[in-house]
């Protein structure tokens, strides 16, 4: 035992992730701000297709989640894992593959998402080749983590590592199963699941990406950096055990609370609700273990920006994880869903919990890595202050906006009509959007202060890439549990078993919900009149996905009188059986479109043409982007047959004749739409005389798709 071995911690990899975290943090927040300003000045980037809202919004969420928080997690993980296991990482090569591979993924995302290459599924928008790359990089990270555990010099693995293991295993499972898709071309694929099944798998993923990419890794960081920075022992080891296992087991069941009042079978919806309620205390276990670790260090919290940030982060975590279960109650969800309430909720999570734990960690780490004091504590305190105020300015107006919009949506006049048009509700929120953008500006400014502070600290310090350390080698002991050994203590030295058990814990909930829905055909009702899309409609739907229309327009009418009045008959699960992927959306910045082509919502082709060309020419208060490029660009349907064949493999009953005649059918339908437009004398003068051959343009496909929406069900009556 006395014989100590010398080895070197790899600080080089930590520094790489440190730089990347700060760089991508600034980038993600800047894009967020660009998007926030579109709500106030909808035309300031007009007619630049790759800067339209539908394409930037996925870029913002992906950058914030995977680029900023992802790099932040890896930064803390690579630093703490080596020290907690008393060894260098298993493989320097894997560490670098992890780093550069992850940056490559981000750069590819930053290129492809603005180009409109996306699979539409939230936080999983990247197309299949990048999905494969993510899987490889993620497995490299996991192999490195597990390899490091195996060669460790510390008998037991600490709670931070438990959370890292769970993060690795669960994200791998979620990513792979949610992104099962059939490639059609290099940049286009269709989800193997359709409609309601796709929705469930997506929100099993979406919810648990929040859980296992934005929560468990951050808890792991908290368990290392909070006691380190406060120099206090962790409050309760037992609480760590209980809340870790209950958290990961219960979390995975809660996904369906994103689909309350939808066409998802109700037994699954209700499981989402009850497991969300049961999740409150496992989540709070992490919060109280974090906050109570600061017992006896509160005098330090008052002066140390690192600890201040940790306190706000953990408090934000506690707030968000209480609010989440409240939002999972059907009666609360009925108000909050589709509104900005949800946007406020998630930003408490990202700005306070993720953003501040990462910022606090960076301030602490840069001093350790560069063996010096922080360039300016005052500046860090300023960051803390304006960041906190920024969070308040961001979230409070959006909470109000969400509640207000939901109330306006459902307000009826005494004569039984809806009091407000959709755009009335949007207009009412304009001041809140301005305040939100102000809050976001403050938060970004604070983070830029961090970047400057860190840069200056790096300048004055001296970095040691390979840090000398020593520890005694681990003597071999029996793998069997010793007589007086606590079972969990035993498990903490059986790392492979630990990994397997934590994976089993997260598989159960998902399987109970997903397997019956995917394989039991009685779960989805059958509607005989629901038919596959025509070739032109299919191309239109793919353009709808490309433009990210689903980021603002839902296609899921809930069974409420006000929604039925505004949008038509509520949605049925059987209506979506040919939708690969589903396009239910999660936020209504614009009205629901599920029945856009049907009675109540129907408009003629000319209306759609002019509205897509310039929404403000039809509704002056609209904040929708204009889509002039749909009118100037020719429709490319060269992959049509491949698309239809692909969909047929997934169960869409296209016949051979339909596929071989697809191009002709497409051209005919496009010509028909063009003819209705060209019949108008104003259109002749304004467009045909200028040489526009509208039948060749993308807009015919989009109009065809919009006119089809919601019409199948009417035929059954």
């Amino acid at each position: 035992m006395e014989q100590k071995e010398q080895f070197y911690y790899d600080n080089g990899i930590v520094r790489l992730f440190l730089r990347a975290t700060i760089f991508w943090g600034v980038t993600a927040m800047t894009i967020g701000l660009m998007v926030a300003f579109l709500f106030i000045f909808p035309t300031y980037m007009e007619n630049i297709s790759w800067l339209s809202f539908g394409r930037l919004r996925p870029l913002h969420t992906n950058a914030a989640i995977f680029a900023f928080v992802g790099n932040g997690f890896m930064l803390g993980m690579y630093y703490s894992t080596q020290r907690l296991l008393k060894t260098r990482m298993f493989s320097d090569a894997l560490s670098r593959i992890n780093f550069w591979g992850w940056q490559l993924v981000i750069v590819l995302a930053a290129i492809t998402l603005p180009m409109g290459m996306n699979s539409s599924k939230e936080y999983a928008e990247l197309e299949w080749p990048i999905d494969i790359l993510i899987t490889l990089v993620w497995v490299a990270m996991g192999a490195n983590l597990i390899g490091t555990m195996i060669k460790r010099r510390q008998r037991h693995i600490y709670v931070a590592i438990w959370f890292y293991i769970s993060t690795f295993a669960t994200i791998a499972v979620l990513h792979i199963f949610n992104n099962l898709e059939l490639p059609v071309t290099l940049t286009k694929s269709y989800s193997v699941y359709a409609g309601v099944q796709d929705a469930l798998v997506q929100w099993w993923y979406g919810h648990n990406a929040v859980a296992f990419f934005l929560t468990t890794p951050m808890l792991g960081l908290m368990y290392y950096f909070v006691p380190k920075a406060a120099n206090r022992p962790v409050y309760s080891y037992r609480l760590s055990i209980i809340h870790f296992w209950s958290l990961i087991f219960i979390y995975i069941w809660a996904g369906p609370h994103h689909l309350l009042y939808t066409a998802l079978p109700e037994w699954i919806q209700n499981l989402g609700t009850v497991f969300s309620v049961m999740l409150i205390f496992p989540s709070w276990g992490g919060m109280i273990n974090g906050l109570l670790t600061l017992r006896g260090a509160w005098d330090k919290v008052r002066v140390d920006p690192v600890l201040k940030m940790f306190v706000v982060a953990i408090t934000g975590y506690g707030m968000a994880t209480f609010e989440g279960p409240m939002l999972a109650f059907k009666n609360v969800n009925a108000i909050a869903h589709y509104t900005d309430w949800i946007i406020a909720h998630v930003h408490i999570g990202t700005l306070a919990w993720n953003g501040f734990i990462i910022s606090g960690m960076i301030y602490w780490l840069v001093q350790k890595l560069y063996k010096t004091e922080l360039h300016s504590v005052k500046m860090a305190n300023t960051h803390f202050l304006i960041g906190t105020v920024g969070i308040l300015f961001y979230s409070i107006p959006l909470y109000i906006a969400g509640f207000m919009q939901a109330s306006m949506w459902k307000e009826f006049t005494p004569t039984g009509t809806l009091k407000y048009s959709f755009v009335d509700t949007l207009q009412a929120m304009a001041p809140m959007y301005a305040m939100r953008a102000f809050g976001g500006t403050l938060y970004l400014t604070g983070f830029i202060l961090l970047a400057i502070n860190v840069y200056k600290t790096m300048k004055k310090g001296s970095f040691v890439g390979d840090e000398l350390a020593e520890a005694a080698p681990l003597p071999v002991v029996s793998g069997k549990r010793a007589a007086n050994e606590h079972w969990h203590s035993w498990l903490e030295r059986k790392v492979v078993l630990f990994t397997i058990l934590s994976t089993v814990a997260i598989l159960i909930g998902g399987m109970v919900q997903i397997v019956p829905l995917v394989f039991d055909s009685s779960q989805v009702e059958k509607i005989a009149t629901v038919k596959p899309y025509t070739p032109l409609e299919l191309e239109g739907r793919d353009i709808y996905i490309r433009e990210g229309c689903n980021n603002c327009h839902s296609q899921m009418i809930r069974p409420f009188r006000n929604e039925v009045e505004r949008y038509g008959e509520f949605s049925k699960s059987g209506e979506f059986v040919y939708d690969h992927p589903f396009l239910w959306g999660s936020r209504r910045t614009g009205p629901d479109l599920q029945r856009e082509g049907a009675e109540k919502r129907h408009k003629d082709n000319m209306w759609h043409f002019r509205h897509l060309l310039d929404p403000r020419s039809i509704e002056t208060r609209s904040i929708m982007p204009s889509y002039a490029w749909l009118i100037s660009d020719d429709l490319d349907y060269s992959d049509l047959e491949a698309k239809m064949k692909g969909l047929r493999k997934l169960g869409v009953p296209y016949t051979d004749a339909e596929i071989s005649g697809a191009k002709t059918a497409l051209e005919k339908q496009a010509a028909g739409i063009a003819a209705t437009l060209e019949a108008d004398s104003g259109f002749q003068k304004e467009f045909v005389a200028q040489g526009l051959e509208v039948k060749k343009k993308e807009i015919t496909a989009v109009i065809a798709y919009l006119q089809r929406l919601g019409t199948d069900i009417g035929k059954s009556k």
Partner: protein
Amino acid sequence: MSNEKKSFWSKWTKAHDIETEEEILLDHNYDGIQELDNVLPPWWVTGFIITVIISIFYYIMIFQGHYKQEDELKAEIAEFQAYKKANPELFKENYDLPALTDAESLAAGKAIYTTNCAACHVADGGGLVGPNLTDNMWKHGGGMKNVFTTISDGVPNTAMRAWKSGGGALTAVQRQQVSSFVLSLQGTTPANPKAAEGSVKWPE
């Protein structure tokens, strides 16, 4: 902190006294991080158990009660029907309202027109997506009753929505005002008139 307060707090957390925390300090040492063996806070355990019990009850009761979310819509509609029955005067639709000619009503009508109609019919009535309203050719009949009906009920399968219902619907008085304003456009000269549509000449 007063003694009373402290005892209340410690009863709820059962946290070990910080002064004597060495007694419960575990022999763990992870890169200098140690762990205390504080018991689970009783409030936390109680809360956890309560949420589990609530959840089980909720789930069972939902099935026992044969609750269906669709029933909420049915109840909402039934409630509205009852209200409608109790207040028939609010739902009497009169399509025989006279055209208004006073300046105040026409101004009100113009304001409604500008907000709701000008997008398709243009501010001066010249027409764009919708037909020209200044000529005397009509697709669905001219005159007060026809115009009021078209505005109230809309035209199926066109962008002309029904203004008596749906989001941002207009009251009967508002529809009367805007119909009157539309009729007042007859014979005016718009900047970019759309060619006449419709087969009904009104007045003959």
